[in-house]
């Protein structure tokens, strides 16, 4: 039976627990922050207006999830939520590689050549993983995190469903659609292992009952993703390649640094401003 921590104050009494907890919440918050930043770059560029409304609504909710998680860190005395989102150094971010990748070539303002097939598959993979992770977090030893997970999960149900609808529709439409989805699966698979990595404190995260192991999350993910591919007639890519370097240790791509600079540009002009 693992010990439960009911409040931020209780967690703050135990330094080792606190350090492990902070590491995990940064992973959760930074994943949501980066995937929403990539989602926000699609605004106005989605295939049709209904999709623009839907995708931006999902993105807004997900940014709300990130904000809620940064506020948990604020309650744990780590710093102000807005500062945590905007003012850390690139190597202090803990998101997975998959969520930081660009949407395609070009810039969203100039010649964006974004790949909606990749948007569908990357988001489906992330939301499926997020659902599995949220289910596990509902049993977390840090009770405020378990409550937050329950809350997020109610909204997130619709996000996962949305990307599933696209797969169901497109996988049974044209050869071109099938081909593009299969290419997108290959591309997503280059980074998919980054999701299951719990970082340098992974063992403690599991021992403290904060979250189940990366292997367990991976197994559930693979089973469900594989079933979806088989039902859709898409090509199951098999075991993903192991990671060379990991975002959970703060190692990120150049694309990430660009994204972060862009994301925090306005906030950095005047961090004291009231929004």
């Amino acid at each position, binding site marked *: 039976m693992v010990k439960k921590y009911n409040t931020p104050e209780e967690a703050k009494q135990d330094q080792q627990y606190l350090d492990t907890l902070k590491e995990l919440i940064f992973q959760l918050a930074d994943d949501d922050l980066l995937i929403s930043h990539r989602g926000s770059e699609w605004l106005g560029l989605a295939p049709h207006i*209904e999709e623009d*409304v*839907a995708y931006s*609504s*999902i993105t*807004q*909710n*997900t*940014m*709300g*999830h990130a*904000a*809620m998680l940064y506020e948990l860190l604020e309650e744990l005395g780590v710093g102000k939520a807005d500062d945590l989102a905007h003012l850390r150094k690139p190597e202090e971010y803990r998101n997975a590689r998959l969520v930081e990748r660009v949407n395609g070539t070009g810039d969203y303002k100039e010649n964006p050549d974004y790949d909606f097939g990749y948007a569908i598959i990357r988001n489906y993979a992330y939301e499926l993983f997020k659902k599995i992770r949220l289910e596990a977090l509902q049993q977390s030893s840090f009770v*405020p995190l378990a*409550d*937050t997970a*329950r*809350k*997020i999960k*109610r*909204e997130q*149900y*619709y996000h996962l*469903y*949305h990307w599933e609808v696209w797969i169901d529709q497109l996988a049974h439409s044209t050869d071109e659609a099938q081909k593009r989805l299969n290419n997108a699966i290959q591309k997503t698979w280059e980074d998919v292992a980054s999701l299951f990595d719990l970082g340098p404190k992974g063992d403690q995260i599991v021992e403290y009952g904060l979250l189940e192991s990366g292997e367990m999350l991976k197994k559930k993910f693979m089973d469900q993703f594989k079933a979806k591919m088989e039902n859709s007639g898409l090509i199951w890519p098999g075991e993903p390649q192991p990671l060379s370097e990991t975002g959970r240790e703060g190692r990120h791509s150049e694309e990430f640094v660009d994204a972060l600079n862009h994301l925090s540009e306005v906030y950095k002009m005047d961090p004291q401003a009231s929004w």
Partner: protein
Amino acid sequence: MSKILSSLEEKVRDKVQEVKDPEITSVSLIEMGMLDDIEVNGSKATVKLIPTYLGCPALDMMEKDVVKAVSEIDGIDEVDVIFVKDPIWTSDRITPEGREKLKEFGIAPPPLHAHEQGAWEIECPYCGSTRTVLDNMFGPTACRSIFYCNKCKNPFEAIKPV
């Protein structure tokens, strides 16, 4: 909220009842099922609200509106609004009055059965027909979807069940 309120706490509740959802101006925060608790200690009032959607930009406005409204009460000098994590907001928290007022605003109230059990049946808020189809799960705000009524041919919005 089922506890017995002091007379000052009742005044606070009456003021919170006057605060409307800024994006659905016919429905108050209480009718939306967002009020968790009210406490008055001396001249300090604490209002605990249950946030609807986490990314909802209206939450900040609601907080300011509650502070403003409750501050008007004689005997209250300080107002603290707290968004609680537990309980979580579910669409079945909307009160019967709230459901009626949503319809007046042209928004269908959420179905009362759980959303994970399959398709939901939504009544058109204009003509009451159930011959409606989902047009977009996502609508103009985080909490709403867009529907179309095949009977009266009106598009309308519905509160998403969560």
